């Protein structure tokens, strides 16, 4: 029973990908993709309910007991990421109904998209290090395909940088796995916790930990390893960039959170101290980079980087409150960031471009879209009572409790600069008149395009408001998730079972 619950969120997207590929020449392909996304969400929620009941849920594939077989495991953090992946997947699947042209559907947009979702979900659910690498690759290869699908010159240029840097990070990660296996003789993450603690030469463990930090750091786009992100995220179709922005970097953050709370906790004073300063610089550089841009999606891309800093900071401070903030931030950020990219797609459809100097007038002509931009934008900047306020509040409070005033100041200062960028988009895209004298009214996009594009935007904005006004259950959830990360005894015992 448990194993089915754990397998379904991965198996459904894979099955959907197969059927969507078979039907890619027909209009039914997109509806198969949509149905698959709905089914994934149902399966994820079922898993969520099981985790809420049991705390941690684990299953051994083919009944090969851990640590020898492949383990799937969902704790609070894992399952919330799976649910949020399914929500983002559903939102972008609806959005794609309006945005993705038939030409891209025939090239296999929907199968690639579903495989990406399967890879991301797999990475969140696996309890085996080498398996994590495999899921990373599944995710990576389908993201490569999605990034260059359409084949414009810009996309190819972006693809080269994205592919090259991500492959290097994968190889660093893979070598790290090899070395860790050489030291401990196991790859099961729960088993590794004890095995790593028993390694005689702890210096070597720290070296390998740094290899993992670099490997995951490239995926998460932390300073100074983020250069592939602003070079590529503004080139693919808007649905693709929304799902990239929402999920891909967060897989890196998740993997970092998992490994640096479960396995690499022997030298917290060294590894996590590095991570604190990396996080601070990530926040600052990202937000300053955004200030220099004048393209809707490029500004948002740099803001991904700056926000990643808050999440890794939650891990780096390594207190219950900070980790709780980090988990809360992850969830809030995925919803908000995906939504902002979706809004930029609608703005592009109506006003004709993403370069802020060449568009305008959206507030006057499409006030509803403007309202839908304001909600995630102000949530991103951390305005109360939206979700971002609580996320930032927890992180800043955690750093003040540690008397780390510099970090608290940086976090607040970055929030201020985020407002600057958001008001820049607001002023240039929404407030000023359109430079070409165009009136970007909603009917510039036909109903069958606009309506599916607006549904997920409204839905995600509603979620932002709900989290903002009723943060209590979400904060409690994040608190338990952080507790499980800091004390993974339940995780370990559930995975390994009761051993004689």
């Amino acid at each position, binding site marked *: 029973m448990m194993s089915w619950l754990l397998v379904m969120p991965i198996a459904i997207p894979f099955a959907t990908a197969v059927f969507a590929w078979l039907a890619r020449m027909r209009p039914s392909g997109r509806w198969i993709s949509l149905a698959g996304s709905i089914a994934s969400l149902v399966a994820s929620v079922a898993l969520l309910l099981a985790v809420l009941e049991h705390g941690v849920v684990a299953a051994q594939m083919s009944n090969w007991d851990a640590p020898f077989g492949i383990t799937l495991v969902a704790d609070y953090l894992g399952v919330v990421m799976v649910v949020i992946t399914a929500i983002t997947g559903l939102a972008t699947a609806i959005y794609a109904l309006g945005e993705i042209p038939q030409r891209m559907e025939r090239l296999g947009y929907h199968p690639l998209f579903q495989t990406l979702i399967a890879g991301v979900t797999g990475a969140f659910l696996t309890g085996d290090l080498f398996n994590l690498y495999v899921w990373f690759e599944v995710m990576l290869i389908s993201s490569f395909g999605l990034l260059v699908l359409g084949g414009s010159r810009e*996309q*190819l240029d*972006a693809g080269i940088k994205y592919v090259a840097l991500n492959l290097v990070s*994968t*190889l660093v990660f*893979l*070598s790290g796995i090899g070395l860790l296996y050489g030291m401990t003789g196991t790859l099961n993450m729960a088993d590794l916790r004890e095995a790593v603690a028993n390694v005689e030469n702890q210096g070597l463990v720290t070296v390998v930990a740094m290899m993992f930090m670099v490997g995951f750091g490239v995926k998460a786009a932390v300073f100074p390893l983020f250069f592939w992100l602003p070079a590529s995220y503004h080139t693919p179709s808007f649905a693709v960039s929304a799902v990239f922005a929402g999920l891909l970097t967060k897989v890196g953050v998740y993997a970092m959170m998992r490994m640096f709370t479960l396995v690499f906790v022997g030298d917290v004073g060294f590894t996590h101290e590095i991570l604190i300063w990396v996080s601070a610089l990530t926040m600052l550089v990202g937000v300053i980079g955004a200030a220099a841009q004048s393209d809707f999606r490029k500004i948002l891309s740099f803001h991904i980087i700056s926000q990643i800093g808050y999440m890794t900071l939650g891990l780096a401070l390594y207190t219950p409150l900070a980790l709780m903030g980090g988990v809360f931030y992850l969830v809030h950020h995925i919803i908000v960031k995906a939504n902002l990219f979706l809004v930029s797609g609608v703005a592009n459809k109506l006003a004709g471009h993403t370069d802020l100097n060449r568009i305008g007038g959206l507030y006057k002509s499409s006030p509803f879209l403007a309202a839908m931009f304001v909600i995630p934008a102000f949530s991103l900047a951390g305005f109360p009572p939206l979700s971002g306020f609580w996320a930032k509040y927890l992180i800043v409070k955690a750093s003040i409790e540690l008397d780390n005033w510099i970090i608290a100041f940086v976090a607040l200062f970055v929030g201020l600069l985020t407002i600057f960028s958001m008001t820049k988009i607001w002023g240039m895209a929404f407030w000023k008149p359109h430079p070409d004298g165009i009136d970007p009214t909603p009917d510039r996009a036909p109903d069958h395009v606009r309506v599916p594009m607006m549904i997920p935007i409204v839905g995600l904005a509603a979620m932002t408001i709900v989290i903002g006004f009723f943060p209590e259950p979400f904060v409690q959830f994040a608190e338990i998730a952080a507790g499980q990360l800091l004390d993974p005894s339940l995780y370990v015992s559930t995975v390994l079972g009761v051993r004689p």
Partner: protein
Amino acid sequence: MEALTALIVGLLVAASVYLMLARNFMRFLFGLILLSNAANLVIFASGRMTPGSPALVPYGADAPLGEVGNALPQALVLTAIVIGFGLLAFTLALAFETYRRLRTMDSDKMRLAEPKEENQ
């Protein structure tokens, strides 16, 4: 045996870093291939080298007799090779298509998706 493998890995990584620092994307790709092989060797060596003792069970026995090679890293390397092969094949195709469309392999000239540098 392990020492020799370690030296080879070091050489491969050094050569691949040298290649990856080149401006030409093809050279970068060759560097990546070398790095991928180095990573595979690391995994292979991490299972400890046991020359001349394959992981085989003799006919009629239930378990291998005596010392045998560790089969797990070999399975891991096999997986990594297959995945790496797929990724590199994709990257090669991407490089070819990029060359066809952009008419350059010089990564300094690939600036379409990024702002141009002022003083060039």
